[in-house]
């Protein structure tokens, strides 16, 4: 293939690629870091890197992350580009015949489209220059702009160009300015050039326009003004009306151009003149200040502390509840509506909050699917219960910080109308971490020592809109995240709290710091409880862990908050007794922690409950043995030969056994005791074979499930620096042996290779290809034709894949230096097509035909869209449409032998 680098046409793409090539290693590494999609999978050459950087997908991603000022800069450069160039580019086909050409602005005023010009075009004042310069710098670094100057000029005065492909994304009318059309009315270009020049002076654009409009019919100026700030296209008024006359006059004067029968368009230079040389009214140099209430930092911290404690408590309740009663997993995954509702009631909160508690507990690995059939959600075995509140909170918040889950969607319906459930796989959203970081960033802006700012959700969206106008986050997601932060205590009363600040990327905190930050704002632990005669107790602060445990066992909480009010009741005391407390032990412990004597009614309550506790007892047995005469049963209990029966004497005439009735019956018979089987009504049953009881099922043990790692495996990408080094090496090798290898590659591609001994170059054999055919030529051409050029799988430009082996190149690392760099990368071919489209030139296209053979045709591309190329074949005078994936290679016409 002859698309070797030195012979490429002098197109925009070429220059852009050259610009990239001339960048320093650090600059390239910065680019790869800023636009990681360029590095994964690794590009093979710098040229394919340039092609990829100007592909629509990658540019869209880059623009989605660009802020409002950067977009303004891009628009301004894009709008000024054609008017700076002389003659005007052929991007206005059909509107006017290229005339003698207006001199470009670069010959009239400022010599280069530099930062100064952009700042002025944006309508910025002198003090905006710094911000604009930063934006320009960033756009260049991200390869959205490039420097068409000498490349060696001072960085402060580059001649900026937009990267190829950007014009498509920013639309035909950047900044609402129409196309650049020749001829331009007299004096306008000069006036605009002066307005953008370093010393704007009279006559201004207004004067130039006035001069042109001196003889215009009435209403002409109004028509221009209406189109001035875009959209630049207007509908032609009906014939015979006064406005129509004005439009006609304006068209004659070249101030408007008829684009078709019904529309007129405002040429770009006229538009610029109307705008006094500006592309924008004013630069959006900085994000709007977030609006909201400001409140004392102490308030936010206190609110955050109580939210954090509440969350930790709720997770504890959740684990306990699911330990006792594990809810089942829905068939599609997730927790059922009824289980969620019940949980919300137990957590004393609403369903969205409960859903969040469930999600965050799962993220922290505290609950999970038990993997049984049918599956249930159960708490995991962890050291959770032994940690203190602050450490527990830190674990939850760390898990949340990297989560990709969107629990705020719980309760909404998906496309199929099904309710989204907590813990369902449906809630995974890859953009959540990025949005979370942005929201945290906005919250961090309001920090100001003693007071903090609590921005409204609308204000946060507004700021984020400035940061990424082309991908505005949905307000519901921002609200959802703000609510999560409030529940977590990352914010308090809507403002970032001190522990929340530790989570900012800038803080780079260790989990211990996060826990420490929370501990600093938590109220002091209190280890005493004021017991009162109405059977309540008050802990005037945050209970210590031991005290909390005691109260959890023995009392019911009535009111929570800065203090805890508990009530002792027969039920709560019974609970404590069930867990092995004794009346004396409980009273001692209470007396120990109470600064006042235990009130008599409480003491009476505990003793009275203990007196009744255990009066009725329940146990499990499988069978029983009863006799009217106690002497019959005497001795059975301790008979060694009956030890396996688990006999226990319940009453003088009743023994219980742990074996089924039939087994007991048999065992007694064999010992010589004549027993009879008895039915539930006490009547003797006729002995039948197979009358057996069923052993009591063992109580379900929910614990003892280890948490798996469960973390997402990140896509492995090489670090930018080493990637840049590789690209440079390829570059050097290419320069060394480009010619010879290019010829060899050409042969390899166009000539059928017999026997399959020659390795296939350039295209990776897709894994689904039938393996081991051995007929290399069919595989070769088929693979070449079928590998989609734009798909990531093939853009890695992997070096080698043995034909017929069917195995994909497993190793993405670049091959040794003798590897052939001359093979065309699909993206390169597309870039050539795009250039030809822009220049209206022809190219040689190799297409895989029906039989899989390559056909070589010279074509004039007309349109490239949606994976299809529409092109004119001048030889056959026919128009044809080719699927892009069938194009094997594209060669410039000039390079054909």
């Amino acid at each position, binding site marked *: 293939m002859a698309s070797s680098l030195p012979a490429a046409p002098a197109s925009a793409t070429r220059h852009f690629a050259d610009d990239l090539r001339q960048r320093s290693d650090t600059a390239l590494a910065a680019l790869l870091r800023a636009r990681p999609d360029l590095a994964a999978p690794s590009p093979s050459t710098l040229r394919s890197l340039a092609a990829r950087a100007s592909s629509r997908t990658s540019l869209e991603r880059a623009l989605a992350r660009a802020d409002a000022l950067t977009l303004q800069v891009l628009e301004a450069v894009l709008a000024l580009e054609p008017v700076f160039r002389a003659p005007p580019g052929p991007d206005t086909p059909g509107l006017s015949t290229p005339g003698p050409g207006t001199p470009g602005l670069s010959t009239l005023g400022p010599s280069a489209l530099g930062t100064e010009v952009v700042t002025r075009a944006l309508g910025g004042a002198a003090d905006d220059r710094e911000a604009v310069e930063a934006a320009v710098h960033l756009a260049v670094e991200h390869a959205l702009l490039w420097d068409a100057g000498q490349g060696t000029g001072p960085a402060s005065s580059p001649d900026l160009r937009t990267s190829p492909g950007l014009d498509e994304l920013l639309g035909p009318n950047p900044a609402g300015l129409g196309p650049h059309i020749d001829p331009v009315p007299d004096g306008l270009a000069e006036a605009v050039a002066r307005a953008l020049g370093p010393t704007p002076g009279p006559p201004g654009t207004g004067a130039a326009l006035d001069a042109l409009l001196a003889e215009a019919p009435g209403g002409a100026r109004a028509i221009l003004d209406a189109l001035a700030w875009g959209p630049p296209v207007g509908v032609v008024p009906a014939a015979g009306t006064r406005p129509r006359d004005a439009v006609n006059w304006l068209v004659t004067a070249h101030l408007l151009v008829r684009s078709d029968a019904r529309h007129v368009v405002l040429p770009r230079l006229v538009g610029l003149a109307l705008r006094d040389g500006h592309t924008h009214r004013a630069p959006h140099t900085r994000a709007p200040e977030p609006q909201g209430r400001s409140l004392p930092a102490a308030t936010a911290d206190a*609110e955050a502390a109580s939210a954090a404690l509440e969350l930790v408590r709720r997770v504890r309740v959740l684990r306990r509840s699911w330990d006792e009663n594990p809810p089942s997993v829905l068939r599609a995954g997730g927790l059922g509506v009824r289980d969620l509702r019940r949980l919300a009631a137990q957590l004393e909160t609403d369903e969205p909050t409960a859903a969040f508690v469930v999600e965050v507990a799962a993220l922290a690995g505290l609950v999970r699917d038990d993997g049984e059939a049918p599956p249930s959600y159960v708490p995991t075995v962890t050291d959770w219960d032994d940690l203190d509140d602050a450490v527990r909170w830190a674990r939850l918040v760390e898990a949340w910080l990297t989560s990709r889950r969107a629990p705020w969607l719980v309760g909404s319906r998906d496309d199929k109308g099904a309710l989204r459930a907590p813990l369902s796989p449906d809630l995974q959203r890859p953009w959540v971490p990025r949005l979370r970081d942005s929201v945290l960033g906005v919250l961090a802006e309001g920090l100001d020592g003693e007071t903090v700012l609590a921005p409204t959700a609308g204000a946060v969206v507004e700021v984020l809109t400035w940061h990424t106008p082309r991908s505005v986050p949905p307000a519901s997601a921002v609200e959802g995240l703000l609510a999560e932060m409030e529940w977590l205590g990352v914010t308090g009363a809507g403002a970032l709290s001190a522990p929340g600040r530790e989570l900012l990327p800038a803080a780079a905190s260790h989990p211990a710091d996060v826990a420490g930050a929370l501990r600093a704002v938590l109220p002091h632990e209190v280890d005493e409880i004021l017991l009162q005669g109405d059977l309540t107790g008050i802990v005037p602060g945050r209970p210590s862990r031991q005290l909390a445990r005691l109260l959890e066992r023995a009392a019911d909480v009535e009111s929570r908050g800065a*203090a805890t009010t508990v009530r002792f009741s027969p039920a709560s005391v019974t609970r404590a007794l069930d867990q092995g407390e004794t009346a004396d032990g409980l009273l001692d412990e209470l007396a120990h922690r109470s600064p006042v004597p235990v009130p*008599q009614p409480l003491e009476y309550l505990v003793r009275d409950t203990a007196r009744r506790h255990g009066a009725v007892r329940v146990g499990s047995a499988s069978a029983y043995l009863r006799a009217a005469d106690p002497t019959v049963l005497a001795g059975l209990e301790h008979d060694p030969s009956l030890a396996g029966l688990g006999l226990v004497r319940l009453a003088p005439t009743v023994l219980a056994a742990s074996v089924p009735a039939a087994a007991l019956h048999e065992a007694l018979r064999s010992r010589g005791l004549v027993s009879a089987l008895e039915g539930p009504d006490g009547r003797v049953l006729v002995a039948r074979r197979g009358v057996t009881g069923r052993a009591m099922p063992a109580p379900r043990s929910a614990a003892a499930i280890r948490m798996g790692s469960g973390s997402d495996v990140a896509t492995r990408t090489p670090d930018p620096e080493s990637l840049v080094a590789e690209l440079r090496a390829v570059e050097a090798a290419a320069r060394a042996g480009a010619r010879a290898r290019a010829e060899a590659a050409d042969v390899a591609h166009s000539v059928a290779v017999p026997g399959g001994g020659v390795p296939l170059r350039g295209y990776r054999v897709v894994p689904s290809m039938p393996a081991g055919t051995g007929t290399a030529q069919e595989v070769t051409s088929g693979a070449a034709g079928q590998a989609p050029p734009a798909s990531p799988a093939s853009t890695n430009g992997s070096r080698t894949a043995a034909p017929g082996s069917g195995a994909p190149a497993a190793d993405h690392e670049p091959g040794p230096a003798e590897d052939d760099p001359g093979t065309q990368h699909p993206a390169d071919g597309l870039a050539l097509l795009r250039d030809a489209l822009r220049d209206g030139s022809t190219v040689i296209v190799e297409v895989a035909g029906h039989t899989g053979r390559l056909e070589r045709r010279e074509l004039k591309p007309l349109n490239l869209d949606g994976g299809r190329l529409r092109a004119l074949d001048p030889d056959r005078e026919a128009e044809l449409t080719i699927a892009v994936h069938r194009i094997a290679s594209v060669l410039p016409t000039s390079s054909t032998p």
Partner: protein
Amino acid sequence: MPDGPLIVQSDKTLLLEVDHPSAEQARRSIAPFAELERAPEHVHTYRLTALGLWNARAAGHDAEQVVNTLIEFSRYPVPHALLVDVAETMSRYGRLQLAQDPAHGLVLRTTDRAVLAEVLKSRRTAGLVGARIDESTVTVHPSERGHLKQVLVKLGWPAEDLAGYVDGEKHPIELSPTTHPRTPHEKAAPWEMRPYQAQAVDGFWHGGSGVVVLPCGAGKTIVGAGAMARSGTTTLILVTNTVSARQWRDELVRRTTLTEDEIGEYSGTKKEIKPVTIATYQVLTTKRKGVYTHLELLDARDWGLVLYDEVHLLPAPVFRMTADLQARRRLGLTATLVREDGREDEVFSLIGPKRFDAPWKDIESQGYIAPADCVEVRLTLPESERMTYATAETEDKYRLAASASGKKKVVEQIVARHPDDQVLVIGQYIDQLEELAEHLGAPIITGATTNKERQRLFGAFREGEISRLVVSKVANYSVDLPEASVAIQVSGSFGSRQEEAQRLGRIMRPKADGRTAHFYAVVARDTVDQDFAAHRQRFLAEQGYAYRIVDAEDLDGSPAGSTAP
């Protein structure tokens, strides 16, 4: 205050640590807007409610004061959401105002048109308001003034009633500086209102209408008399029953310049209408052929003041009648705003906001009511009764447990411990009471006892001629028996808290010799009787009365007249 006496919880309860040095100051500051929910020994619990906050607004407190008070006395940072909520709730009061317009009569005015639009859109206000005068004013049918206020409270936009009151027919009433002797040999003694009573009268008069909350025995009748004297107009007094009506009359004659001839009784037996008329709720709610026959009483005179005794018992029909009395000054008197039927908001909208409140313990510590020692005596039922109880139908269980035969002996023992006291035995079941009366040899008053006989027995008890009296629930309310110092409750109306308060109130009048009052509740162990008792006692404990539980078997051991620990 980092070490303040108050802890503000996010569930809108306020915990006040009583032993804190600035507790008293904090209590006074929060009393106007927070309802005291319970007042046990160490930490008192107050609650912020919408009604309470509106009460405070009505009394002239604004949200800023409330918020500052909370912040000032709170030990921990006050939950932010609560402060926001307080401000929001308080700002709702007074956006709508009922006022007299010189041209259009009674109108509903607003400072916030959106609110007016919202309430007018509600279907509940349909028919209560008339024509729209302008964007922010609408006429109100004078007859619907009460209903409208009631509806507006329900809608969450309570109206401030600035429409004023009719003056009413003038009738001179003064408090007399000395008491008028009841019997010829009693001497006239100088007296004056206690400070808190005077404050209550002031609070009421400045507010226009409203409720005064005072514990039993704290002299609510005197507050009523004070209000009448301040008003100086004809007065309609609504009371719970005839006995109470007579006591009101006696007290008024004793303490004011009114004479017997100026006071009429309007009850089942008498139908007098005089400048001061005392009517019973019962006669007002009597219906014949579906019509309230005695409604004309309300319009019989141009009353300048309507007094409601025991507001918490006000029956629903009287509420409806009260809705039509909105142009007259209204004073409600009660020991507790707790209504077992939960109609507190109707009291607020129809009678008025709370104008005065004082915790029992405070008044007790000032010596105006007697200190009380509350004891629950637990009786273990004999085997046979336990079997009967265990197998009884659910609806019979309480009766069985409450009228356990063993209680007779316990009552006897308790009575024996108080040989020198005036003892009341109170119960629910007539059979049980009759048995007890016979056993103790004491007279009995039940619903079947004639009013004359009741008067005679109460008189004899007051004079000390009889020292034991067995009474049914007819004596729960408004029976003034100042010398009773021991009450033994053998059975109650299930778990009624306000009944417990009333019964305790019977023995709370201060004793001449400063003796401690004793309140015994005898309950059967391990039965529903015990559960109901626990519910009732919670009320006592919450009011700050320590109580002890003793087993009936231990009763002999403890010395008579022992005081509370």
